[in-house]
């Protein structure tokens, strides 16, 4: 387990070494709607650009203060040179905040290559599926031009297999969390999924397999306390910190529906003759995030289903200030949870994680559930 934690202690080390070792190109991406399989099949390493709080406020020159802390934190990482090893950057249309960060990155941070995927917002719209399929073709062409490598069907099949394996392994880890007194903590699981976003999946899969075999031999803990679910905005390293804090206070995060958590790996590519369509369909069918749930409230149904499935007692809605889509979804989600007598805590913050404040809020929430 420590290996995953160690990877996240210096999240850039792996990609830098990979680049040196292989001579390949590293493509940073801002939103997990980027079809990583295509990047991987082109021989490049897709790496998630992770946010850290913009403590010095260097992003304010480019992004107005009402951009969420995550988008400002991402841009700040670029501006301070943390991601200078990236050869390319990519983004898929999601929220306005991250699109703003991407726009400013394009303009002010040197990079060799860039690509933007026009990801539809209405995923119940059949014509948008066709449009997204054509976006995949455009991306494939672009990657081939950039890397000088033809993306063959064999390469695509291999990438799909590697990514599907990673997803299946992560599902196995999450399955362990469904049990009473799960063997794996939320923090451990989160470190596994986050580290998978910054390294070659094939290599990460080996680590995962090894970890899973060790976990099955691990003793169940006596009492994991209150069973909680985490929803809301992505806070990347902050999510790991918050999860550890919560789990130190008599609770376990047994499930999440975060873009950098379960949402990242939940569904596989279902192979079909048209590989690009198969990949398109996978991203189309992902559990809905707040941005992509525009019509039928599939997210609410998904969240409630998970809460029941994982026997959740309380939900922490961990949301950034100015995270518009998550703020918009909050009332219907609260309403649905209330109907099922599931406790709810609205943990709005500015991304800086003031530990004392968070601790007292979470402690109270856990006490309420215990009573």
């Amino acid at each position, binding site marked *: 387990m420590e290996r995953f934690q160690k990877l996240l202690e210096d999240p850039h080390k792996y990609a830098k070494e990979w680049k040196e070792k292989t001579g390949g190109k590293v493509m940073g991406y801002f939103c997990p709607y980027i079809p990583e399989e295509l990047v991987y099949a082109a021989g490049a390493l897709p790496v998630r650009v992770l946010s850290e709080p913009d403590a010095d406020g260097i992003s304010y*020159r*480019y*992004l*107005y*203060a*009402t*951009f969420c802390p995550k988008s400002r934190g991402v841009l700040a990482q670029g501006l301070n040179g943390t991601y200078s090893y990236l050869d390319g950057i990519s*983004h898929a*249309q999601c*929220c*306005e*905040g991250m*699109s*703003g960060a*991407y*726009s*400013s990155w*394009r*303009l002010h941070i040197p990079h060799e290559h*860039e*690509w*933007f*995927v*026009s*990801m*539809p*917002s*209405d995923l*119940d*719209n059949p*014509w*948008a599926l*066709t*449009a997204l399929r*054509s*976006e995949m073709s*455009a991306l494939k062409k672009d990657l081939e031009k950039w890397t000088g490598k033809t993306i063959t069907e064999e390469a695509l099949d291999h990438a799909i297999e590697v990514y599907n394996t990673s997803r299946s392994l992560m599902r196995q880890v999450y399955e362990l969390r469904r049990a009473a007194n799960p063997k794996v903590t939320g923090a451990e699981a989160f470190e596994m999924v986050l580290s998978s976003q910054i390294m070659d999946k094939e290599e990460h899969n080996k680590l995962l397999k090894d970890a899973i075999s060790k976990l099955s031999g691990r003793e169940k803990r006596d009492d994991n306390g209150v069973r909680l679910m985490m929803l809301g905005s992505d806070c990347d390293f902050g999510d790991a910190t918050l999860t550890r804090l919560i789990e130190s206070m008599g609770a376990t995060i047994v499930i999440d529906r975060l873009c950098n958590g379960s949402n990242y790996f939940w569904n596989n590519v279902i192979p079909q003759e048209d590989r690009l369509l198969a990949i398109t369909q996978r991203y189309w069918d992902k559990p809905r995030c707040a*941005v992509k749930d*525009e*019509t039928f*409230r599939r997210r609410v149904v998904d969240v409630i289903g998970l809460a029941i499935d994982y026997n959740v007692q309380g939900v922490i809605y961990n949301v950034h*200030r*100015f995270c*518009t*889509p998550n*703020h*918009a979804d*909050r*009332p*219907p989600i*609260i309403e649905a949870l209330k109907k099922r007598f599931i406790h709810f805590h609205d943990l709005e913050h500015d991304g800086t994680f003031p530990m004392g404040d968070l601790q007292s809020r979470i402690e109270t929430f856990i006490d309420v559930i215990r009573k």
Partner: protein
Amino acid sequence: MLIQRPEKRWETRPLECWNKAKELRKQFYQKESTAKETNTFIIGGGDSLGMGMMVGMPVCHFIHPNPLAAEMVNASDSFPRECRAAFEAKGYGHDWCGYMASYLGSMMLNRSFRGGEFPRRDISVTGNDLCNFFFKHGQLESEYWDIPMHHEDSMTYYGEPDPERANALVECLVAQNLDLIEFLEKATGKKFDDEAYVESFKRGRRTGVLRAEVIETLQNIPAPLDEKSGYSLFTLGGLVGSDPEQTEKLWEMIRDEMRWRAENQIAAVATERYRFKDGFPPPWYCLNYYRYMEEYGAVCVSVNYGGTGGLEEQPDGSYKLPKNPVERFENIKTREDAVRAQLSGWRNFMAGGLPNPEGNSERLLKWIKAFKCDGVILQLQRNGIGCVDKEREETIRMVEEGIPVMNWETSHAGSRTDFDENRMFDQLDTFMESQGLRKLVD
């Protein structure tokens, strides 16, 4: 130089078209309040439709939240505050776009700012317009009334202009618009009138050309129309789908009046000596900001929001109408032809690389030159980032080009609660003084 007196005073006159415009707007909103008696379906949203589609489906009346909320916050300080409180009491954040919070709050209170109940919506039709609030408002509206919803996804991309990509995304929009017509037929049980739609579409294009001709006159010194007045006119035939025939006549009237004013040097602001460009709509509760600027002889002659309405850049940097702008649409015969033509602007927008912030900034620089602006004022809207996502980048670009630019913070369409008018006027004073200008004293 503590006191400045106007060096030149232009002749100015009230707008003759003003009352006619007010009358048309009134008629439009009256239709909303009498919808029940006239068996009219009120459609919430419909921002991407254009007025042609309403004529094809005369049983529908489209009400877009933006102009309604703008009027609401301009008419009263207290009512939008109540709306916002009602909206936030339901759990929605204070950072929601002011248009949406005011509109949805009014719906939740079941009170119209004109008095009486908030007219029930029968169908919700939304487009995301790349703004996170637009798509979410449709969800809320349709759930609140338990009514059918149609949603349109306007996909676009950043990066190198690519006609092939733009085409695929536009085709997606064409399909969605055609689907919308069928959806409206199902929802209302009425047949869509293709012939009326096509004719009305052409009328809409003619109206658009008239609007562009009006914008063209704003390049004149002195400007015959200031943007504060322009804001009251430019939504007519667009977001405010007033009677198409009357709207065309109104725009003819406005165009003729503006041309006459430009030829005869009739100014919107008698003391015009400083021309500025505005960003997105101002705080609707503080339109006197424009009047305040007039005390310096400053007039707003161009806004990002209104664009240049189909004008094309000329080799000398000015903007003029393209050749035969109306004839381009005369061959349109079918519903599909009209939908495609309607979306041609979106195609050009993408194919021209304009979704990119740098494209936006470069376009802004050209407008500043064409409209002979001395400075730019770009608002940073506190509520909703859809209207500010490029403002900081534009500001940086203006500074690089040595163009005076001022940013100021506001909630443009929300309630006045968070707004400090005196502070803003102080900031305007500082900015104008940095331009070497003081308030004019006669």
